[in-house]
Each structure stands twice: as C-alpha cells, then as structure tokens.
C-alpha cells in the first residue's frame, strides 16, 4: 500500500463517524429532492379543508402562510417536513447522547437510521405530511426537560400537539413515564392544565380560518373518528385500526426506537426492524 494511501485511510478511520455524518446528511438531502415533484393521488384531500377534516387548525394556518413563499404550497410543506426530518435526527442523536455519552457510534448510527428511515422518508417528503416536524418539537421538549427546564418543554410539546393532534398521546405517555420526578398533585394538575390549554388553543386557532371555536374543538379529536381523505366515519373497526397505525406510525417509530436504544429494552433488533418495515408497508399500501 502507498504511504499516502495509508495516511488517507488512517485519517478517514480516525474521523470515520464525522465523515459518516456528513455523507449521510448530504445523501439524505439528495434523496429528498427527488420526490418533491411527485404526489400521491389523495394529496389534495390533506389540504382542502373539507368537512370533518382531520388536519389541525395550526396546520391549515401554516398552509395559508406558505402561499406567500415563491414556490408551490405542497413543495413548501414538503420542505418543512425535510426540516422536521433533519431536526428529528439531530434531536435523536442528542437524546441518545444523554444516556450514552461515550458511545459515539450509537449516536451517529441513530442519526443515520433516523434520516434513512423509510417511514420518515415516505411520510414526509413523499406524502407531504409534517409529522416529523411535530415529532421534532416533541423531542425538543423532551431534551429540554432532561436539562431540568420546565416551561419551554411544555410550550414545545403544546405546539407539537397543536400541529399534529395525535402527539397528545405521546405527551401524556411522556408525563406518565416521568411521574416519579414530581409530586402526585403536580402530575395531575400538570396533565389537566396541559389538556385544557391545548383544547382552548385548538379552538382559538380556528378563528383566523373563519371557523368557529366549537369547530376547532371538534377538529382536535376528528383524527380519531374520521377518514382524513373522505371525511367519513370509518366503515369497519379494521379501517380504524389501520388508520391509527398510519397516523401514529411515524411518531411511534421514532419514539419507540429512541426508547429501545436509550433503555436497551428486551426487544430484539429483529423485532424492531420488522415493526418498522410493517409500518413502511402500511404507508406504501396507502400511497401507491
């Protein structure tokens, strides 16, 4: 082997993880450029504010706001999801770092797996959904909570749940899993307070959209009852289950994956891969 070659390989090996991060980031951005111009058949239904729509009021305000940008609104939404993808990946790395400070390999691998998760890729830039942006806000709140900050994480999680209402379950799960860090009364008051503020904001956010406060309240839980595309109630229980898996798929994958890595749960990597793949197949069955 040539001397220069060996020096180069040694240099790459020494900084392998940094190179990996840069390369993976560049490739992740590159593959997200490609589906920008492609859309699923049902994409319009997520934007048209039809009766019994399940997207949140904050989401529709965002859609209105991006009309002022010099690009197609659906492209703007897709690029917001790309920001969410990268933000989620960075926050996953930081959250893993919190529990595994010396394990740089694990941190970088989590970043890579997050960015190249087919669930993230399909749901965001391919399907024009901004679940990852909501998850990013949730993870930001989680990270700040671990740094013993209390108000700002609450605001982050509130925004997350306002943008994507199903995140409310994950907020309650988060608070439940940390109930031992607070007094019982604080725990219950905190939960009720969060829920109340969230409901009020759901109603208020509908007012600029020329809709009533009560419609906003109804919309906050519409995702539990109505099909997002047709606005009709679910025909069968199976339809409901599948739609809930689609709705909760991305946040569930990310948060579940984080828990798996941070707490080293007794769940095999094989099971994690399989579940992730099944969610991807479910997305694919809706999109193609």
């Amino acid at each position, binding site marked *: *082997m*040539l001397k220069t*070659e*060996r020096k180069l*390989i040694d240099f790459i*090996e020494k900084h*392998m*993880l940094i190179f*990996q991060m840069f*390369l*993976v980031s560049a*490739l992740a951005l*590159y*593959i997200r450029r*490609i*589906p920008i111009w*492609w859309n699923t058949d049902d994409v319009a239904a997520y934007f048209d504010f039809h009766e019994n729509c399940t997207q949140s009021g904050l989401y529709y305000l965002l859609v209105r706001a991006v009309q002022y940008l010099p690009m197609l609104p659906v492209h703007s939404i897709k690029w917001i999801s790309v920001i969410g993808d990268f933000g989620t990946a960075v926050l996953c790395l930081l959250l893993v770092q919190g*529990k*595994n400070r*010396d*394990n740089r*390999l694990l941190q970088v*691998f989590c970043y*890579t*797996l997050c960015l*190249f998760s*087919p669930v993230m*890729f399909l749901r965001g830039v*391919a399907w024009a959904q901004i679940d990852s942006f909501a998850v990013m806000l949730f993870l930001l709140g989680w990270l700040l909570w671990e740094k013993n900050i209390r108000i700002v994480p609450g605001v982050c999680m509130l925004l997350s749940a306002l943008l994507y209402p199903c995140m409310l379950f994950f907020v309650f799960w988060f608070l439940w899993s940390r109930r031992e860090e607070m007094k019982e009364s604080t725990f219950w008051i905190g939960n009720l307070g969060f829920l109340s503020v969230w409901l009020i904001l759901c109603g208020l956010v509908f007012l600029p959209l020329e809709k009533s406060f009560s419609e906003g309240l109804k919309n906050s839980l519409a995702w539990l009852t109505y099909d997002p595309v047709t606005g009709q109630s679910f025909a069968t229980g199976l339809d409901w289950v599948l739609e809930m898996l689609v709705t909760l798929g991305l946040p569930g994958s990310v948060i579940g994956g984080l828990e798996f890595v*941070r*707490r*080293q749960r007794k769940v*095999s*990597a*094989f099971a994690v*891969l*399989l579940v992730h*793949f099944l969610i991807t*197949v479910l997305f*694919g*069955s809706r*999109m*193609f």
Partner: protein
Amino acid sequence: MDKITKKNFRAIIATISAAGLILRFIGFPFESVDYEQCLSSWTEQLKAIGNISAVSAFAGDYNYPYISILYFLTLLPIPSLYSIKMVSVLFDFLEAGLLSATAMHVAEDDRRYGLGAIAYALVLFNPLAVLNSGYLAQCESIWTALGLLSFYLVIVKEKPGWGMFAFGMAIAMKLQAVFILPILLVFYFYKKKFSILHMLWIPVAIEVLCLPAIIGGSGWDSAISQYLHLLGEYPFLFYYYPNIWTFFREAPYYVFGTAAILFTFVTLLLFAVLFIKSGKKFYMQNYVQYAAWTAMTCTMLLPCMHERYNYMAEMLLPVSAIFDKKLRIPALALILISVQCIGQQFLAWAPVSYYALAAGNIIVYFYFTAHCLGGLYREYRKNEGMTAC
C-alpha cells in the same frame, strides 16, 4: 470429520462430484423458456454469421464475454443446449471448489478435510445450483464462481492483483458480480495490506474478456457501452425477485429508484463502519458470513432484481451455516423460498404469492441482519468497556 484423511477426502470429493454431475445431467434435456426464446436464437444468429464478427454484431441483452463463449460453443459439434449447460456446470465445480478451499482455511488440523467436503457438497447439491446450470441453462454459476474466485484470492490468499483481475472477469460476465465488491472494499480498508491501485486490473480484465468482440469489430469501449445500454433497460422497482420492493411494486421507479440504491449504500456503509469500529478479530468464517450478508443486502434492497440475482448469497449462506448453527434454519428457508420462486417462474410449479415469498425472505434477511450487525455492535461495546444502560 476427525476420521477424514487426505486420501479419504479425495475419494469423497470424487463421489460428490460424480453425484453432482449426474443430478445435472438428468436436467440436460430440459429446455427452459430462456433457452427457447433467447439462447437458442442467439446461438443460431452467431452460427449463421459464422465468424468472430458475430460477437460484435450481437444485439441482445448479455455482455460480450458471455456471447463470446456462446460463439465458441457454436464451433463445437455438440447441440447448443448441452454445450451451454456444460459451461455453467464447469463453473459450478469451480465455485464448489473455491468455497471448499475457503472452508478448509477455517481449521488448521485434520478437521479441515471434513469442513471442505461438507462445503463442497453443500454447493454442488444446492438445488438452486442444480436447477440453474443443469435445467435452465443460466449463467449464474459463471459470474458467481469468478466473484468467489476474487474473494478467495483477495481475502484468503491475500493476492490482490489476481483477485481484482478475477473480479474484473466476474463483472465482465455479469454486472451482478458487483455484489462481492462491498466485502472486498471493507477488507481493503480494514487490513490496509494492498493498494487501491490494484483495482486498475478490473478494466484490464474486462478488456481482455471483450477481446473477441473487439477483434470482431467492436470499439474498445464496447464493454462500457453495453453496460450503459443494459443499466436502464428494466426500470422497475420489483422485477420478480421477492425482496422488499414486492410490497411497493406500484411505486414509480423514476422517483424511488435512486432512493432504493442509496438506502442500500447507507446500509452497507453502516456495516462497514461497524466492522472497522468493532475491534473484533475476524476469522475466515466471519468473512464468508459477511460476504453472504452483503450480497443478500444488495439483492434485498436494490431495485430491479431478477429472481436469480441472489445466487451468490444462496451459495455462501449454507457454507456459512456450517460454522454458525444459528444460520442453518435461515439458510434452509432462503434456499426453499428461492427454489419455489424459480420453480413457479420456469418449471410450471403451483404458484405461491410473491407477497408470501417476500415476507419469508424479509424475515430471513432481518434475522441475518440482526445477527451480523448485532454481533458486531456487541463486540464494539465489549471492546470499548461499555455496558447496556
């Protein structure tokens, strides 16, 4: 295994070889769809022109080295059906011999004869090898054998120049031989024993194998132009191999094809980083296992995979399972799924849903992935003195 001496070993190999040959001869009269529709008409065209220019005049979807072989076979007074199959069968023996020799490197003592005999038998009696060469007149054994030759020369014998020349020959025969490249590159990076300049033998080997076409009138860039012509020929995510894309066959290739290729690249990148960072001491059986995994990763994640393209992993995984009991059932499952896939495609067997076959393949692949990468990661943690939190 303890009782197999060198003398016994030769007798056992001879017996296995004879049995393997008989199994293949049984299938010789069978004319597959590919033979009827492609190989036989190509052979007739080559015969009709009657000289070396027939190779450069060829307009089908195979590369020039294989067409050169077909041309030279037309000069023999043997029906093309048998001569084409005989070439593939010869390479069956080469790949069995190479994997046997590799397996024998695992142990230094007399156990190596037993290991070698078992590996030889596993390859030669592999139903996919028998079907592919003896029945279907396909050429998977040719590029696989040459790819395994490059693996043997680079990793086992540490002769990188010859190894890269063999690799060049392999990809000259068929581009799918590139599936052996990941393990070669990881070995190069990890061992730091040979220069990347040895890869310059690859284009030399390709040009050498394309000499008949060049003599027949093609340009010096004929190999490259043929590859470029073939690369975009089948723009489908799913192309009859039951991999992950079976579940996304309606997805447009022009949107998701590049993503598929980059997903594969990143998966292999993660493996490479884990391999190097693990600090593990690697033995020959580890290299065989990882070669099987990297080859299978390419077939499972890349788009446009034909049902034969996992051939290399299907030969490597059973041999790897000799040394790792946990891989025996996955190896068996993989072989059975692939046999069913080939059978229903070419031998009019009762069809099984591609979704079911793909589900089986995915379970095997995920298990294999968790086994390989999980093992490397545990080794990394052990060497870094980390414990689970």
